[in-house]
């Protein structure tokens, strides 16, 4: 039984959680901000989907 390697386990989980958490947060915030500009422009600019090729 290789005891005392909880340190590595904690290190592994903490860093992974930090990386994934940061990425998910960036996505969520980005989406909220993009939706805000999308709606704001949507009201005056008028929602128009041009025909993408």
């Amino acid at each position, binding site marked *: 039984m*290789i005891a005392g*390697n909880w340190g*590595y386990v904690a290190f592994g989980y903490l860093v992974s959680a930090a990386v994934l958490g940061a990425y998910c947060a960036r996505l969520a915030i980005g989406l909220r901000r993009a939706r805000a500009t999308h709606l704001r422009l949507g009201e005056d600019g008028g929602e128009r989907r041009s025909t993408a090729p």
Partner: protein
Amino acid sequence: MIERLRSAWLGALTSVALAATLLFALVIAPPDSVQGDAARLLYLHVPAAWLAYLAFFVTAVASALYLWPRTRRPAWDHLAGASAEVGVICTGLTLFVGSVWGKPIWGPWWEWEARLTTTAVLFFLYLGYLALRRLGGRGAERRNAIAALIAFVDVPIVHFSVNWWTTLHQEGSVFNDRMQVSITDPLMSFTLWLAVGSFTLLYVWCCITRMRLLELEDGQAERDLARAIEARVAPTATVSA
């Protein structure tokens, strides 16, 4: 509105699944008979590695669908980009957790073991793809799709040559794949499947959110374009003869 509800619901489910995984992986699942608690990193390493390959497979399929004229839609390009981005993050995590796990077991931080080495090459292969995507520009979607397919064709070749390299390199050496923990305990295998499941949910949520983000960015560009065309058409109605 439904679309926002869907991703919120999925987000909630993912967080619950991840929380459960954490609980099982760190507390409920028993330590490994040989490696002790270090084996708990297995519940991080295996899902991340699985996601890396899944993400790159999805990127390749989405790119192929974008290239095929009949199924060409911006959504495929967005999916390819989103999936590759999550894939690269998972590849990075796989490498990181792999070396953190290897440290107590083997001694060195990095072990030239077949799967880890292949993952390292894939990491840089798709970092290149992401760098290419960031450049955008005219005709970028088709160029990115072709690059994704070329990278995907490279995966088996890299995998094959690295396997040869590691197996031939250490004939019969002691470094057989000791990271391959033999999971007999049902609780451990349940935790592992729970981990794979929750990570896959996380992957889906990240992809959907990232795709929506790309779509909104493109949508904005499309709207500016439509307005530019309209602006360019309107004044010429009175063109000077």
